[in-house]
């Protein structure tokens, strides 16, 4: 398998739900990431073979949002674009899709990434209510209109919150937080462990502000320049986090808003391609993708997805976590990351042939994770790859593992290298 080179990458700042990026759509954010990347690399976008973007809550007014992003970024019409969706792994799916295209001989230079505006996820009406609105729209005479209106009941005006629906696994009926509670119980992850992990995510991100700035292109909105991630808290301590109430299992649970990932807007863009493409452009790449795996698992325990994906990736590549100089595990929930670490330490329970491995604390999520930075679901996968490669450059490391869990019961694991 030929490596896919990650030639360059950039992201927007990540901003909490309803904050500085409120009012921007996923295509706005994706456009900011893409134009910043094109500007900084200076490449002619006409040479791009395809634009591939991940987006989970695809905007109703921008179907195939990748195409909208591409055209709005000044990429010529002849360059096609496709949107990919693997829930929280959509940003990784964009990268690995480009790799598969390249291996199939369908191009050697791709603009990929992920974009998500969780602030823009709409409210929806139930199908039964929508039918009634349809009747009302069809009504021609005053009498028909009165009849149509008479059919409405108060519950017809109660919207279904799109964000909540999106974060619920339809198969098991469990909202994501509930799956984290399952893991907390089964792996004996206490509230204190979760809060300590969460506080550390903030303090690591805070300490890495300058390094994070290298991943970021400021967004110049009319009247305000957004230059940094705004979810990182300076006052996040285990003590303060301990005061928050559990939000999923209110009586006996341990998962709180403080030890879960933040709901966030943001976008990431990466320029990826073959070795030929790298030579042609003359840009020193950030690194390369050398192997990867996606694996399915129990939707109720989706948080363990990374363990399953790491095991499958080992079969495909021969690498296991002890080969990594750096590890990024997406922080969907503190309980979930801690459960992954526990499962890797004692893999018998998972049914996989893995050596027990303890990931050293100092190589895990060095710049903080989604608990501090936020988790714009479609973009996060690409952010993990971007930050892992930046950190390899910073530390002089050689190999990194980027992995995340996926709603609906999947895991993704990507192996990255830098010379």
């Amino acid at each position: 398998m030929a490596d896919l080179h990650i030639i360059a990458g950039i992201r927007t700042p990540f901003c909490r739900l309803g904050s500085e990026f409120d009012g921007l759509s996923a295509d706005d954010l994706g456009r900011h990431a893409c134009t910043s990347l094109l500007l900084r690399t200076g490449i002619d976008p006409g040479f791009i073979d395809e634009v591939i973007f991940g987006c989970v809550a695809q905007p109703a007014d921008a179907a195939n949002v990748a195409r909208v992003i591409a055209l709005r970024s000044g990429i010529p019409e002849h360059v096609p674009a496709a949107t990919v969706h693997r829930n929280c792994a959509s940003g990784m799916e964009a990268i690995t899709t480009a790799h598969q295209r390249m291996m199939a001989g369908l191009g050697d230079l791709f603009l990929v990434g992920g974009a998500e505006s969780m602030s823009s996820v709409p409210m929806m009406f139930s199908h039964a209510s929508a039918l009634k609105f349809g009747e009302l729209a069809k009504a021609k005479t005053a009498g028909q209109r009165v009849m149509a209106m008479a059919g409405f009941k108060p519950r017809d005006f109660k919207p279904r919150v799109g964000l909540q629906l999106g974060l619920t696994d339809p198969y098991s009926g469990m909202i994501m937080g509930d799956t984290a509670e399952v893991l907390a119980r089964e792996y004996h992850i206490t509230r204190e462990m979760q809060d300590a992990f969460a506080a550390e995510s903030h303090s690591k991100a805070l300490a890495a502000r300058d390094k994070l700035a290298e991943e970021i292109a400021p967004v110049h909105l009319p009247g305000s320049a957004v230059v940094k991630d705004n979810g990182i808290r300076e006052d996040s301590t285990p003590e303060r986090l301990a005061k928050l109430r559990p939000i999923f299992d209110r009586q006996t649970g341990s998962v709180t808003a403080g030890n879960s990932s933040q709901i966030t807007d943001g976008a990431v863009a990466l320029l990826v391609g073959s070795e030929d493409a790298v030579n042609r452009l003359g840009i020193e790449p950030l690194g390369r993708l050398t192997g990867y795996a996606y694996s399915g698992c129990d939707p109720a325990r989706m948080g363990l997805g990374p363990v399953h994906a790491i095991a499958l990736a080992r079969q495909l590549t021969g690498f296991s976590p002890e080969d990594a100089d750096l590890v990024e595990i997406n922080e969907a929930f503190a309980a979930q990351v801690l459960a992954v670490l526990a499962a890797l330490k004692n893999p018998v329970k998972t049914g996989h042939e893995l050596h027990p491995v303890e990931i050293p604390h100092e190589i895990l999520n060095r710049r903080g994770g989604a608990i501090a930075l936020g988790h714009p679901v479609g973009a996060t996968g690409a952010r993990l790859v971007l930050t892992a490669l930046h950190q390899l450059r910073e530390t002089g490391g050689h190999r990194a593992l980027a992995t995340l869990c996926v709603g609906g019961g999947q895991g993704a694991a990507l192996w990255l290298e830098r010379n």
Partner: protein
Amino acid sequence: MNHIHFQLDGRHGVLSFDREGSSANLFDRAVLVELSEKLDALSAHPELEGLLIRSAKPAIFIAGADLKVLSTAQGEELRDLIELGQATFQKLAELPYPTVAAIHGACVGGGLELALACDWRVASDASATKIGLPETNLGILPAWGGTTRLPRLIGLPAALPLILGGKILVAKAARAKGIVDAVVPQENLEAHALTFLKRGKRHLPNRILLHNPVVAPLIAMKARKDLLEKTRGLYPGPEAALEIAAKSCYGPITQGFRREKEAILKLAARPETHQLMRLFFLQERAKKHRVVQAEAQPVGRCAVIGAGVMGAGIAYWLSARGHEVVLRDLDDAALAKGMKAIAKNYDEARSRRVFTPTEAARGLDRIFPTAAPVPLDRCDMVIEAAVERLDIKKKVFADLAARTRPDTILATNTSALPVHELAEVVSNPERLVGLHFFNPVHRMQLVEVVRTPQTSDSTLATAVAFVRSIGKLPVVVRDAPGFLVNRILMPYLVEAAKLFERGGDPKAIDDAMLDFGMPMGPLRLLDEVGLDVAAHVARTLAEAFPERMSVPDLLDKLLAAGHSGRKSGSGFYIYDGRST
């Protein structure tokens, strides 16, 4: 003579305008006579079910009267031309069967007056379709029935702004005003226009409540007040048009024609009209004037350096004209401020229906703000609008020279600094040129193109063509202090400031110049420009020509006290509504 072709198509006739030996359809005596004869013949065929009028030219319906004829005709000759036009169009209006104008391309002046004499008007939605009566801009008025017919069609209150402002509308706007009856794609234009013939002769709406000897003068009074605020009584054309439109919207139509004729005969003899016509011809000449023989190079992507008032204004204008623009500033906050100004420009353009919401959004998408030192080798033109300091500009240009292609045109928007001094720091200085836009960029038509001794013909030709392509009027000037505009303007502004220094009332000074015909008083203009900017330009000029002008101490005193003009809230005036 064969400028108009008639064709019988089933049971209706088609009249095609196709002026021989010209790309445009214009009305002169010969065309009018031919049309008159054709209409005489047509009126003898009452069995026809209708008549469609069209143009055989690709992008012009009828561009009005031949201005060369109109501007030179006087006395009897002009009277004859006006009477011929009025009588001919009235023949068209009186045909016993319905008539429709299928309008694609420019339909202005006499072209619209012809269309107004038809029962129905259908226009194509192409951007080339432009509809209006611009006569008052030239000091005259629509006198082939337009001043009389338009109010009768769309009502006096709607017609007055169009006639007095000489406004040119796109097809959709003309539809909204009621001037045309339908707007359709060009391919379907004539087929759809024919369907209007089935509607029969048009019966104009009865507007007796507005169009009567009591109400019409009241409408006119209000319109006159607004008009005089703008013209201060200096432009007799729109005033005459106002009076005639108000009087002729009721009563016999022939009375209106008589009034139009008398008014245009008077107006044509006035010096204002001669000067406005001359201005028009000069502008037309400037639009086509070829400064050098060299071929202009195409300009696509641009960069603007500096996101201040001028940088943002230029970036807006270029993006609105389809150019991608890298907007570079060292400061993220300055970029955000610039983006705010640009977004405001687009909002205004959208609310004035210059752009649809989608067009405005795509325009904004074409701007790429960045504080990072990004490569600029994909830019064909870089316009610098940074601080007016030679040392800073030299640094900027040395850097630009390194980050652009060797053939990228490097332009400075300086208003006072010598452009050629930047040549020292630029590799390939033949690509250096001045492009001096004026503030506010989206309103000011003139752009000074400054040629240094090293500027190549190719660079100059490209710069001139570029300025024209973005809808501005280039004027090529030498690299001398103040270039053209400030060289003329500054001594005048400085003199006004000196009058103020000697105790003159700013309002009285400004009013005197407004009465003279200036669009804005000199002290008000200084406040708008900014006293700091003005003082800088004035000083440059005073240094170059000490015997001709000096900078009054007053400017420095005002600046030292923080009164730098409108942007600081005070200058010669205080910007809370009262004068100092």
